[in-house]
């Protein structure tokens, strides 16, 4: 240890004598050299006067540590001008490189002791915590390097690699829903087959009230075989965000004789971070030989060592019970992933069923809709992700307890099965209605499906990574031994030191990304309707995942685009745009996920969405109907789609630009939160009504419409109202839903309220037609302002509004809410008039 001049001396100091010779043993606090310093002091002299005198103070410098003096850096007579100057090198008997519980593990000294002449704390010498099961053991950087080197040598000799394995949703799926136990006992339950091999254990300290809580663990299909095979090639580590007790219990289940994981279990208790997983926690020096399998890429910051797997979502809607501390999972990918599991992995028949009318098809839909309907416990859990603030952590842990308690009491699985049963009953009723000789209707459908094959592929990938690694290693090993050239030169093959062996160890961070990058090389992907609104297309989980496989992601369709990833049931502007270019393949998410799963550029065939560039819609009023498509897109798409939408529509008839007008005027934040099924399920009569309504709305001059409409007014009442009134009525219809907003806006200036009004009106146009109740979505990206004909249209709207205001001149000073009341009154009046007109016609 090199001693330097400390900060707390009175500089400059002059060394007078070195008190210890070279090679001398010194104790702590032993005087090393004597020195003096000068200082002015105030003293009284014999005459009682106080004078300032410069005095010399001789003193000694004491050793900070014990040991043996290696070399002096100063001589007698030297003047030390300030702090930080090297004084003497002392070799310590112990460097305190391994510390346990605040003690040096080598010499047993207390490392937390600080004395008056300590320059650096001993506990700072060992700061790396790399042991799995304990937080009390710290080692120094050099010790860590040495340990890791030994570990690497050991692995190389056994031709193994390290593999860090996540538990939840990667190799198992856990729930605390006690319904599972009931299903296990009940052999008649449709889910019995799927849950009969679910394992369970009880954690006493966990769960609500500390009474203990039963955990039900479903192993991913083929797990045991997977672990057995992979443990021959890899040394496996568990790294989980669950508690220690949870992790050890899981390990007992998946590795009963501790042959696979041994003690290499790292849990939340020792991880050191609640939000992220860090490979440096286990491999502080280098991670060349480490691979990771996890269902979440974000917690690993998309490390190159990571193989991201599809989340295992066996207990539908439960999610990851241990993820409450993690940042929120990006919803689209998770949801899509769970959707495709049933379809994508067996693409052919499942997709056919989906489109067909048979019973299975309709039931396959059921879990999805229940997914949306019931609040996902897992979602509640992941929504709590936050910073490292201790208060936040505290609240997170209490919330996790609450969420687990809720799962125990609410029994989401049972609820879903009930819903599924109801759906079944309906379906069977329908089927008995349609064809009498269908199979027995009493057959219930199971909520849980045991059809995951992720691990088969994962094993292949891990094998290929292992093979590639050791091929590279062998090649380098061979090359570095001199090889043929050296032989010809007559050189003796140099005796290789193992140190050099380690230098040629290839890096998995280079090998694995290289293998993966081959999978989707040359593929240019545009996402549409898949990436949630407000998420940057480039940094969304799915994009980063795709990029790790060598794909390019862009946000608009260009000449380079090869694939458009779209949702099957939504025809977005980009889909239409892409459909015009025959070389672009429009595929579902399932294609991409199959590629990820198989590490192959799989055939797009089963995943293709067939979209014609100019699709003909139901009742001829195709283009006019597009507003009902657009809002749905808006809910899911990034704002860049709006631009695409504008151009798309401007290609079409100019008079129909009203469609984009609707979309552009609405800030994305105001759009309905969920794509509504109702709009798609409008029956023919309604479609007709809407079509007519729009016709009216667009062509005010069309004089026939009134009389035509009034004829049809018995079936579609709405037809009888004049366009202006119609609009007002719409406003009144949705007045309730936007009431809160109005009260806010009423306080604002006239300009603000006008803008607000425009937005609201635009929103109402959408919402009144799609029956969306809630319009409060967290703020997304602002949509670009529109110019051109749409703007003109908007001006007209504004004038309409102005008329209304004039009509309600008496209340002009009052708030917007009143105006709306007036609107309602006017609408009612107009409706009455229309009814009178009808009477007259009759």
């Amino acid at each position, binding site marked *: 240890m090199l001693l330097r001049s400390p900060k707390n001396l009175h500089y400059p100091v002059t060394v007078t004598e070195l008190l210890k010779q070279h090679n001398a043993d010194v104790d702590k606090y032993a005087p090393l050299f004597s020195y003096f310093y000068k200082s002015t002091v105030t003293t009284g002299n014999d005459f009682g006067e106080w004078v300032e005198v410069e005095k010399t103070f001789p003193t000694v410098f004491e050793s900070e540590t014990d040991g043996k003096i290696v070399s002096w850096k100063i001589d007698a007579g030297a003047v030390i001008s300030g702090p930080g100057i090297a004084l003497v090198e002392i070799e310590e008997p*112990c460097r305190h490189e*391994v510390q*346990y*519980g*605040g*003690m*040096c*593990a*080598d*010499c*047993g*000294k*207390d490392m*937390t002791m600080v004395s008056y002449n300590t320059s650096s704390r001993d506990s700072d010498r060992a700061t790396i915590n790399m*042991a*799995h*099961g*304990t937080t*009390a*053991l710290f*080692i120094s950087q050099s*010790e860590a390097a*040495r*340990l890791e080197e*030994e*570990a690497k040598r*050991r692995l190389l*000799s*056994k031709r193994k690699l390290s593999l860090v394995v996540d538990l939840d949703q990667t190799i198992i799926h856990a729930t605390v829903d006690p319904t599972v136990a009931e299903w296990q006992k009940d052999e008649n339950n449709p889910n019995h087959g799927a849950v009969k091999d679910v394992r369970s254990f009880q954690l006493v300290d966990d769960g609500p009230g500390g009474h203990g809580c039963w955990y039900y663990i479903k192993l991913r299909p083929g797990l045991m075989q997977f672990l057995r095979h992979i443990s021959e090639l890899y040394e496996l580590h568990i790294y989980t965000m669950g508690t220690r007790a949870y992790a050890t219990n899981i390990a007992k289940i998946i590795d009963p004789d*501790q*042959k*696979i994981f*041994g*003690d290499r279990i790292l849990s939340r208790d020792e991880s050191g971070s609640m939000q992220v997983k860090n490979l440096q926690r286990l491999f502080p020096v280098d991670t060349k030989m480490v691979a990771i399998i996890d269902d979440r890429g974000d917690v690993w910051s998309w490390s190159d060592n990571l193989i991201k797997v599809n989340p295992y979502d066996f207990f539908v809607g439960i999610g990851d019970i241990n993820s409450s501390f993690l940042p929120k999972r990006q919803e689209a990918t998770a949801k899509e992933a769970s959707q495709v599991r049933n379809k994508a992995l067996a693409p052919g028949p499942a997709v056919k069923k989906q489109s067909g009318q048979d019973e299975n098809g309709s039931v396959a839909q059921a879990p999805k809709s229940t997914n949306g309907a019931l609040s996902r416990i897992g979602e509640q859990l992941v929504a709590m992700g936050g910073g490292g603030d201790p208060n936040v952590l505290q609240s997170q842990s209490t919330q996790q307890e609450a969420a687990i308690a809720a799962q125990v009491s609410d029994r989401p699985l049972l609820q879903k099965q009930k819903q599924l049963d109801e759906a079944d009953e309906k379906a069977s009723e329908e089927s008995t209605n349609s064809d009498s000789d269908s199979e027995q209707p009493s057959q219930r459908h199971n909520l849980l499906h045991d059809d995951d094959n992720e691990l088969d592929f994962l094993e292949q990938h891990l094998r290929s990574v292992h093979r590639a690694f050791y091929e590279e290693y062998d090649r380098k090993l061979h090359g570095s031994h001199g090889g043929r050239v050296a032989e010809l030169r007559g050189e003796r093959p140099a005796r290789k*030191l*193992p*140190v050099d062996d380690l230098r040629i160890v290839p890096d998995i961070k280079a090998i694995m990304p290289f293998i993966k990058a081959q999978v989707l090389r040359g593929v240019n992907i545009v996402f549409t309707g898949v990436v949630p609104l407000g998420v940057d297309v480039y940094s969304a989980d799915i994009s980063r995942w795709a990029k790790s496989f060598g794909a390019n992601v862009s946000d608009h369709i260009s000449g380079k685009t090869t694939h458009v990833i779209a949702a099957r049931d939504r025809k977005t502007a980009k889909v239409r745009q892409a459909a015009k270019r025959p070389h672009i393949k429009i595929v579902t998410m399932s294609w991409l996920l199959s590629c990820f799963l198989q590490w192959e550029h799989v055939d797009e065939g089963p995943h293709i969405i067939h979209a014609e560039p100019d699709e003909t819609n139901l009742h001829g009023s195709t283009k006019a109907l597009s507003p009902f498509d657009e809002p749905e897109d808006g809910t899911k798409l990034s704002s860049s789609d709006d631009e695409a939408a504008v151009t798309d529509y401007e290609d079409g008839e100019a008079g129909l630009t009203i469609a984009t007008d609707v979309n552009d005027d609405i800030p994305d934040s105001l759009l309905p939160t969920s794509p509504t099924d109702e709009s798609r399920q409008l029956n023919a009569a309604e479609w007709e009504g809407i079509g007519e309504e729009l016709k009216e709305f667009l062509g005010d001059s069309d004089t026939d419409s009134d009389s035509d409409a009034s004829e049809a007014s018995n079936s579609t009442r709405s037809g009888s109202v004049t366009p202006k009134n119609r609009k007002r009525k719409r406003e009144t219809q949705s007045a309730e839903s936007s009431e809160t907003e109005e009260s806010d806006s009423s306080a604002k200036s006239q300009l603000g309220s006008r803008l607000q009004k425009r937005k609201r009106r635009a929103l109402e146009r959408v919402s009144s037609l799609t029956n969306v109740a809630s319009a409060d979505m967290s703020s997304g990206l602002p949509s670009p302002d529109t110019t051109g004909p749409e703007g003109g249209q908007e001006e007209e709207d504004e004038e309409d509004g102005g008329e209304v205001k004039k009509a309600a001149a008496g209340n002009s000073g009052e708030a917007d809410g009143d105006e709306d009341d007036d609107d309602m009154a006017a609408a009612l009046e107009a409706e009455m008039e229309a009814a009178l007109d009808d009477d007259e016609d009759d």
Partner: protein
Amino acid sequence: MFFLHELERTITLHPSFFGPRIDTYIGEKLLQDVEGINTGNYYVVCVLDSFDLSEGRVIPGTGSAEYTVHFRAVVWRPFKGEILDGIVAQVVESGIFVDVGPLSCFVAKSVCLVSELNTTKRDFLTLQKMIPSDIKYDGNSTPPQWTDNADQVIEKGSHIRIKIKGIRVEVDEMFAIATIKEDYLGPLPNE
């Protein structure tokens, strides 16, 4: 080392326990409060008998009563240099964790480098200070173990005899550093 130790403790009792069985309650509360705790220097293993129960004193403002209890207890205090038998809790590359009752000890590999001047690591003459040099870590065996490839095998669950080299106390935890590099230390034959 175990001691019979006389201790004193103040027990606060809620008024709902006042009654004829108050002595029993105090005794229960004492056992609950005291047994198994780490006072900083020693662990209280077992309360033998309680005697000298003071008069109860009601604390103004709360209604609870305070009793001072004198009692005798078996306490355990580990000392530096003491030889103890324990069970191996975990085996890692850098050493062995041993549980001696509530005390968690670490037997470090703690290689001391005899010759530091040579720069290539290979030429280091290494010497294990806490573990005999012939006992090496074997991470490839399952479970991982320290072994001399003969009759001495240290794995999780093994019985082991250690000597304490250092002890440190934190709030409610005690840590110890131990060695097995002395005569008659090391793994014990499992019965």
